[in-house]
Structures are given as C-alpha cells and as structure tokens.
C-alpha cells in the first residue's frame, strides 16, 4: 500500500514539475512532510517563480496561486485522467499573458480528456475548439446557442 502511494506520488510529482515550469515559468515540486511516514504527513506544494527564492504558499499572489493549483490538477490528470473536466472561471485572477498559457495547456490536455471551461476571457475563448453562448433575456429563461468560432471571420 505504501508502495502504491510512492508510485502515485512520484508520478504526480514529476508531472507537476513539468507542468508548473510550463505554466508559470518557474520551478515547483511536491513535498511530503515526512517521506518515511506518508500516511501521517501532509503534502506541500513548493513553488518558486523563476529567479525568486522559494515562496511560502500564503504569500503568493492571486495569479501565482491559481497557476500552482492548476498545475497540480493537471498533474493529477496526466496520472489518472478523468473523462471530462469542468472548470468555472479558473482564469479569473490571471493576467492576459497567463490566460494564454493556461489556454494552450488546456488545448494540449484536451487531447486526452474533454474540457468544458466557463470563461469570460478572450484568449481562452480563442483557444477553444468551440464556444457555447449562454444568454438570458430580461426575466426570461437561459438560452443556449452554439457558436463555432473557427468558422467565423474576424
């Protein structure tokens, strides 16, 4: 049982290191409080953006926390993919450049799983295979329209 955990931990950690480097241009890895007693330990995310010394998680900015959390989710996905992922405005703290990086990562991960991403951000919409438009006329019900941006001009 401890061996199964170690195998899972190592796989997720190596995914996390690769993904974090790509998403946030920095170095990160997973760390157990006590590697010899995993089932009594906590799992820490050690992250430092490039050129900065290791940061405590609490002092990271909103955008940095988002990218770190998403790197962890994608690291889990590469190890044990779910058939679909549903993200609701996970880009809300990200600046434009980071939304683009995240959108590219999702596009890549979407080769292995279905991604349904609620977003208001243009770089995310532009990277998707398609957009579902949702509107609500005043007082009326939600209406859903499919839009395939790849076939639209401009």
């Amino acid at each position, binding site marked *: 049982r401890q061996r199964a*955990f170690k195998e899972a931990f190592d796989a997720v950690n190596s995914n996390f290191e690769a993904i974090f480097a790509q998403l946030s241009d920095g170095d990160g890895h997973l760390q157990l409080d006590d590697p010899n007693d*995993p089932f009594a330990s906590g799992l820490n*995310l050690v992250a430092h953006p490039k050129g900065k010394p290791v940061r405590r998680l609490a002092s990271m900015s909103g955008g940095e926390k988002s990218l770190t959390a998403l790197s962890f989710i994608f690291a889990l996905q590469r190890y044990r993919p779910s058939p679909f992922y549903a993200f609701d405005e996970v880009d809300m703290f990200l600046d434009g450049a980071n939304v683009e990086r995240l959108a590219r990562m999702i596009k890549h991960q979407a080769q292995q799983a279905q991604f*349904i991403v609620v977003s208001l951000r243009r770089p995310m919409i532009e990277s998707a295979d398609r957009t579902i438009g949702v509107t609500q006329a005043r007082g009326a019900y939600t209406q859903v329209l499919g839009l395939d941006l790849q076939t639209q001009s401009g």
Partner: protein
Amino acid sequence: MHIKRVELSHFKSFGGTTQVPLLPGFTVISGPNGSGKSNILDALLFALGLSGSKGMRADRLPDLVNQNVSGRGRSTVEASVTVTFALEAEELGLMQPEDEDGAVPASNGSTTNGNGHRANGSSGNGHAKVEPLEQSVLAPISPFNEWTVTRKLRVTQQGTYTSHYFINGESCTLTQLHEQLHRFRIYPEGYNVVLQGDVTSIISMNPRERREIIDELA
C-alpha cells in the same frame, strides 16, 4: 468517454427543456453575468450526484426547481437533468448491468485497470478489452455506444421532495450510480470539477487533505 449532451428541464434558470450538445476536446461556455453558465455545471453535479445542495448554491434541493415553475404553487413540480455519455469501443466493458438484487457481478476479483471486467455471468478473461460483449448484456446501452444518467427532483405543494436516479432509464440508487461513475474515474471528491471561486482552494487546503487526494488515486 465524453459527455455528449446535457438536457435540463425546469432546472435553476432553465425554464423549459434545453439541450446542451457537447463534443470531445475543448469547449468554452461564455456569456453575460447571471445568464446561466455556472448553472450548467451545477446540472452536471446534480445529475451525477457529485455534490450536496450547498455545492450547487442552493440552500435546499427544492431551490433548484425553476422558480417560474414552482412559483405557481398549484401542484407537484419537477426538475430533471439527463447527462448522455458517449463510450469508446474499449470502454463498453465498464458498463455494469446490475443484478436483480443490485449486486454488481464483476465484484469478485475483477482487475483494477478498468479493462476486462466480467459481464453478467460470462467467464470473461482478463483480455476482454476488444471482445464484443453479448448483445443481451449491452441491451440497456443504445446502439450508439451511449449511456445516460437522469435525476428527477419532485417537490410537492407543501414543500416535501423526492429525488430519483436512473441509468439508461432504469431506476438505480445513488450508490450504484457512484460505483458506475467510479469505473470511469468520476468521483464526488474528484478534482475534475472546479467551481467558480474555488481554484485556489487547493492552496489553502490542509496539507493532509491534499495528501489524501494522492491516496485516492493510488
């Protein structure tokens, strides 16, 4: 496997019956504030039994019924959501038809990698991955390699309510639904659904809870 379609009837801001068709790959849902985007994700959580009412921003389940429907107060009202999944050929073996007593036949010594589950009493070897299953076994699955989950929430005029789950139109318990979803790696505590405002919760979570996420997968 991917979600092919979500059908919402009288659910939250969806007044009538609305189809949301979905394809594999990367889909964005966008639109103005308050239009109903997050409600579509709530519909997934609702139908698949992945969250309590608070996780769908409802104080109690009856709050999920569209207010224009329940507002009339004349009789029992119902909200329902159906999620249709499309299966890959090699996944067909993961569908477990239930025995009459609800037991799942392949629960004795089945492999853990999700392939080669034994079907309804056949001797099933560990390499059943591409072997077509008996048509009778697949009977509940439509010929397009789909399967559906439906949940209906009925609320009486007095405010009492009942909730029922169905796989391929057949009544099932939440436990059976979770077992079936489990085989496809869909879990209530899974991190494949991230709700609005929750993305940084992985950072502020207790380190032991975070380690348990790895336990689950191992």
